[in-house]
C-alpha cells in the first residue's frame, strides 16, 4: 500500500513539475476580515472579486491562478502569522485586500522582507504610500488623504467653514481627523473643536450635543462602520441636520448607507472611488458580483478585482512572477479595467484614478434597494490623491 502511494505521489509530482514549465502558476492570498466589523465590505466578497479577476483574465495565457483566503480578525499578530505561513510554506505569491490599517502596515513590512507583492485595497492609512512606502506594495482603492480631500474640500467650498470633529479614539480616527483638519484649514475653514469618542461606541448623543452646542456648520465624523452609522442615526434623531448643521461622513461605504436607510442618510455627502451604478461596465460587473454574493460590491471589493487583474496582466507582460520584474511592469503599464477605468500606479505604489463625491439620494429619488447615490462631482485623478512629492516616500525620487 505504502509503496504504491509513494509511486503515485512521485508520478503526480513529475506531472506537476512538467506542467510548471509550460505554465506560470500564481497563488493569490486574500487576507481580510471575514467575521468582524469589516466582513461585509471586504470578507468573502473580496475573495470572490479576486476569483472573478482570474476568470476574466482568462486561462489561455499560460498562467494558472489559485485564490486562497483567510481571516486576520483585524489583529496585526494574527495577520502577520498567516502572511508568514503563506509566504514561507504555502508558496503564496501575492497578498491582496487587507483592511484595517494596523494589519496592513504589518503585512507591508513582511511582504517587503520576503520580497513578494502586496496589493492593498482595504486599508485607509495614507502612510502605506508615504512614510512607510515599500517597493513591494501597491495601494489601490482609496486612502485617508483622498477621503479628507474629497469630502473636506467639497464641504468647505460649499460654505461649511467651521468644523467640529467626532473622532474615534484610536490611530485611524486620529489620522483621518488630522488629514481632514489640514484640508479644512487649507481651504480657509476653521476647526472649532474635537471630541474623542471611545471605540467602539453605541450612544453618541452626548457627543453630538457637544457638537451642536459648538455651533459649527459641519460635524465631521472621523470614525467608521457601526460608529458612523450610530452617529448619523442619532444626529437625525436629535434634529441636528434639521437645525442647519451638516454631517460629513469621512469614511463611509455603500454598505453603511444601505444599513442606515435613506430616511436617515439622505443628503449625506461622501467620497468613494467606485459605485456600482457609475456606468455600463460597473453595472455589468456588479450584477455578476451580486449573483454570486447577493449584495452589491463595496469599493474595496471592486479594488481587489482591479488590482488582481492589473497584477496578472503585469505577470503576463513580464513573463515571470519575480516580484521585482512584476512590480516594474505594474508601474510601467497604464492600468485599465472596467471598474476604475484608466489609471497608473505611481512610483510610491499609489494607484491613482478619479475619486467621486456622492450625495445620498432621498427616498423619493431612489428606485431600488441599492439605488443610493447621485454623483455630485468627479475629482480628477491628478487632484484626487496626495501629490507624489508630499508623501515623504523614499521611492518618489
Amino acid at each position: 500500500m505504502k509503496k504504491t502511494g509513494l509511486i503515485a505521489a512521485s508520478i503526480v509530482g513529475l506531472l506537476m513539475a512538467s506542467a510548471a514549465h509550460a505554465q506560470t502558476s500564481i497563488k493569490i492570498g486574500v487576507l481580510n476580515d471575514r467575521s468582524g466589523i469589516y466582513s461585509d465590505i471586504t470578507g468573502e466578497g473580496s475573495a470572490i472579486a479576486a476569483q472573478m479577476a482570474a476568470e476574466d483574465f482568462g486561462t489561455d495565457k499560460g498562467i494558472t491562478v489559485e485564490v486562497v483566503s483567510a481571516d486576520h480578525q483585524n489583529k496585526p499578530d494574527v495577520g502577520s502569522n498567516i502572511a508568514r505561513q503563506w509566504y514561507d510554506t504555502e508558496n503564496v505569491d501575492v497578498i491582496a485586500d487587507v483592511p484595517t490599517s494596523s494589519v496592513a502596515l504589518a503585512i507591508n513590512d513582511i511582504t517587503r522582507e520576503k520580497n513578494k507583492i502586496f496589493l492593498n485595497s482595504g486599508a485607509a492609512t495614507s502612510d502605506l504610500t508615504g512614510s512607510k512606502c515599500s517597493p513591494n506594495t501597491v495601494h489601490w482603492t482609496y486612502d485617508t488623504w483622498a477621503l479628507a480631500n474629497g469630502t473636506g474640500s467639497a464641504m468647505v467650498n460649499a460654505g461649511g467653514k467651521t468644523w467640529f470633529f467626532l473622532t474615534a479614539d484610536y490611530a485611524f480616527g486620529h489620522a483621518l481627523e488630522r488629514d481632514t483638519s489640514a484640508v479644512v484649514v487649507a481651504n480657509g475653514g476653521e476647526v472649532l473643536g474635537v471630541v474623542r469618542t471611545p471605540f467602539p461606541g453605541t450612544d453618541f448623543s452626548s457627543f453630538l450635543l457637544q457638537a451642536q452646542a459648538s455651533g459649527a456648520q459641519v460635524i465631521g465624523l472621523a470614525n467608521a462602520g457601526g460608529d458612523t452609522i450610530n452617529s448619523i442615526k442619532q444626529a437625525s434623531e436629535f434634529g441636528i441636520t434639521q437645525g442647519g448643521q451638516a454631517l460629513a461622513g469621512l469614511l463611509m461605504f455603500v454598505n453603511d448607507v444601505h444599513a442606515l436607510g435613506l430616511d436617515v442618510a439622505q443628503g449625506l455627502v461622501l467620497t468613494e472611488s467606485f459605485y456600482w451604478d457609475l456606468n455600463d461596465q460597473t453595472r455589468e460587473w456588479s450584477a455578476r458580483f451580486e449573483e454570486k454574493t447577493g449584495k452589491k460590491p463595496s469599493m474595496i471589493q471592486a479594488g481587489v478585482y482591479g488590482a488582481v487583474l492589473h497584477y496578472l496582466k503585469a505577470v503576463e507582460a513580464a513573463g515571470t512572477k519575480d516580484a521585482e520584474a512584476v512590480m516594474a511592469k505594474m508601474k510601467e503599464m497604464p492600468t485599465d479595467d472596467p471598474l476604475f477605468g484608466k489609471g497608473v500606479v505611481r512610483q510610491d505604489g499609489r494607484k491613482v484614478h478619479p475619486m467621486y463625491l456622492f450625495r445620498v439620494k432621498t427616498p423619493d429619488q431612489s428606485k431600488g434597494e441599492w439605488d443610493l447615490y447621485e454623483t455630485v462631482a468627479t475629482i480628477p485623478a491628478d487632484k484626487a490623491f496626495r501629490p507624489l512629492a508630499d508623501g515623504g516616500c523614499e521611492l518618489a525620487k
Partner: protein
Amino acid sequence: MFELLGIPPQALFGQLLLGLINGSFYAILSLGLAIIFGLLNIINFTHGAQYMMGAFAAWMLLNYLGIPYWGALIVAPIVVGAVGIVLERLLISRLYHLDHLYGLLLTFGLALIATGVFRNFYGISGLPYGMPSQLSGGQNLGFMFMPNYRGWVIVASLVVCFATWFIIERTRLGAYLRAATENPTMVGAFGINVPRLITLTYGFGVGLAAFAGVLAAPIYNVNPNMGADLIIVVFAVVVIGGMGSILGSIVTGFGLGLIEGLTRVFYPEGSAVVIFVIMAIVLLVKPAGLFGRTV
C-alpha cells in the same frame, strides 16, 4: 450666567438627561439579568444576544409580516422569550445542579452561536429600522432638544422596571418565585410546579432583553454585534448593584447612566471605562455590591 467647571448649566442638564436615557437601557437589561441570576442562579451570558434578537425580531416583523413598531414591542419579547424557554428546557435546565461556571460557559457559547448565525444571514453592517412616526420629532426644553423617542424610552423603561419589581416583591406569584429559589423542595411540596415557574422566569428575563432590543432598534444600529458591545457594561451594572438584587439593578442602571453621561462631558475619552472603575471600587469596598446581601 454661572458655569460649572466651564460647562454652561444648560449643557449639563442636557447631558444628565441623556445619561438617564442610557441608564434606562442599562436598567432594563440588568433587571433581566438580575432576575435570572437571582431566581435561577444562572449567569445568563446570552442576554446580549437576546437583546440583539429582540431588535432583529422587530426588523423581521416589520419587513416580513408588516407588523409595525408598536406591535413588535409586544410580539418580539414574546417570540424571543419563547425561544429562551425552549433553550432553558432543552439545555440550561440540565445545569442547575452544577457550578455557576458551567451555566456561564453554556450561555456564552449560545451567544456566540446566535451572533454567528445572524451575521451569516444578515451581514455585519446592520439593517435599517425607522422611527415610529408618532414619536419622531422632539421638544425644545430650553436647555436641549429632547427627541420624543428618548422621552418614550425613559417612560417605558420606568414602567417596565416598576411593574417587574412590583410583581416579584409585592404579589403572590412573586412570593412563590422567591420561596422557590430559597427552598424548591419545600415549595414543591405545597403543590407548586417549581420547574415550570423557573422556566417561565427565564422566559420573562429573556423577554425583557428583547423588549430593550426593540426599544433600541430605532436609535442604535441593528447589527449582530449590538448585544456584545453592551453586555459587558450591563454585567458591570449588575455586579455593582449586587448580583441578583432587583432594586439594586434598577437603581444602579439609572445611576451609572448618569455618571457615564457626566464623564462624557468632562473627560470623553474615559467614558467607556468609568463604569469599570466604579465596579472595581465597589468590589473592593463592598464585595456583595451596593444592594447585595452579604453571604
